[in-house]
């Protein structure tokens, strides 16, 4: 089962532009996490936002959480070619961590 649904499925931008990815989920959560996956590799944890937080920053990453709309967004500012990867949101549901389908980001130099 997939809890989070990412939007868009794919995103292509130029280096230096900002990239925004959205995630919607269905049930109440304790926290929401974002992970990155480079092609052929495992996932890397980027950031965690708790249900009582509305916004969180980490370097060039900005995450927002709207529990009333059951949605979150991940903003990557001043993107670089090295940001090319798939990005997944993950939420805790029924005692397990459930991942969405992911957004495939391509940053062109």
């Amino acid at each position, binding site marked *: *089962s*997939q809890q*989070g649904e990412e939007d868009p499925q794919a995103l292509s931008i130029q280096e230096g532009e900002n990239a925004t990815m959205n995630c919607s989920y269905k049930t109440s959560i304790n*926290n929401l*996490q974002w*992970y990155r996956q480079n092609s*052929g*590799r*495992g*996932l*890397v*944890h980027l950031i*965690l936002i708790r249900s009582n937080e509305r916004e969180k920053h980490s370097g060039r990453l900005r995450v927002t959480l709207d529990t009333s709309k059951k949605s979150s967004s991940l903003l990557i500012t001043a993107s670089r070619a090295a940001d090319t990867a798939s990005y*997944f949101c993950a939420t*805790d549901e029924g*005692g*397990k*961590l*459930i*991942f*969405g*389908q*992911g957004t495939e980001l391509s940053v062109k130099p």
Partner: protein
Amino acid sequence: GAGVSQSPRYKVAKRGQDVALRCDPISGHVSLFWYQQALGQGPEFLTYFQNEAQLDKSGLPSDRFFAERPEGSVSTLKIQRTQQEDSAVYLCASSLKTGWEKLFFGSGTQLSVL
């Protein structure tokens, strides 16, 4: 070790063959997770260990799938009588504490069943 290590990196099996996939988590990590990832999809939960106890195996697709972590460190995912639909990347992850925060993933084992 420095990170989560999985072996083999690639496995080709004939339909009906048994396979065993190994995961070495980060030393001292309490929690260990197995996920299955189909091409172009997000990881799907298989099972969860807290130390040597398997607390949740609700994601295992059939009784052909079996996982163990006998000493609370290394884990093995075994698939008996493999089928073509078992072809996927199998990801192992560990975390320092109990719960589901900040998982560290291995690079996965890509299983192809012919």
